[in-house]
């Protein structure tokens, strides 16, 4: 598959994932499972952009690891905040008070 063809398919996949992800937004009764799915979709989309648009696969190791760390860290924080929001609120209570 040519490089440009691959770019086109990645773009199409990103559009489909975005529309599907937006569909989850209509669920007012969303629980923890939906939060995990939303976080996974976020991580997949970020990885696709990193690998195919930003071309991090051939980039310097430190750049690649730093951006991947940021890209995977966010979905992880989404899940952790959803699961342990009370703990985070208690730990940061002094900041808010």
């Amino acid at each position: 598959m040519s490089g440009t063809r691959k770019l086109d398919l990645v773009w199409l996949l990103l559009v489909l994932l975005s529309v599907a992800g937006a569909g989850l937004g209509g669920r007012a009764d969303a629980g923890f499972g939906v939060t995990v799915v939303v976080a996974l979709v976020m991580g997949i989309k970020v990885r696709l952009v990193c690998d195919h648009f930003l071309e991090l696969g051939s980039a310097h190791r430190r750049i690649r690891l730093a951006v991947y760390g940021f890209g995977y860290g966010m979905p992880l924080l989404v899940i952790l905040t959803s699961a342990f929001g009370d703990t985070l609120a208690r730990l940061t209570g002094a900041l808010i008070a």
Partner: protein
Amino acid sequence: MTASLAFPERTNVPDPVPAPAAAGRIPGSKAMWVGIFCELTEFALLFAVYFVARAHHPEAFRAGPGQLSLAAGTGYTLMLLTSGWCVARALHSMRAARKAACLRWLLAGFVFGLGYPLIKVLELRWNFAHGLDGSGGVFIITYYYLSFTHLVHVFWGLLGMLWVMARTAGGAYTVAEHAGLEAFACYWHATDILWLMIFPLFYVLR
């Protein structure tokens, strides 16, 4: 005489061993990556504020996405993704020595990129019509703070895109030397990545 005292020519020194593929390269330029990591750090702090605020006000953040226009949020996402795709195609065109195609892809990327501030204007009118101003509570304040900061970064990107379009039209980039174009592409994709994080946080996640 002078020649006999001179240091050996550099050509006598073996060429350095090429860097292994695992070491990789720096796409664009070091300076641009300093800027991108500053951008990521700035947003990391803003995201930290988001998570702390969400932990303290779970009900406000659970109800928040229902107040915003999901169509607008999806519209931003599609505009930025499509603009990023056009910029990636522009870079591929330049590498294939198709400068006219590169310019056309950049122009398309700019037009789709302009869709972002256009939707922002429409969304703001919609928000204000629905009473979502600065007094709208912790969710809305966090939303405005993060999304407006991102808007500023999009503006920088649009200006950068105009610059690389002018440079491309002026023949400044070649197949062998187009680091400026690549550096801009890196910035634009990094800004895109940030939006891919902001979108679910404010428009989707309940």
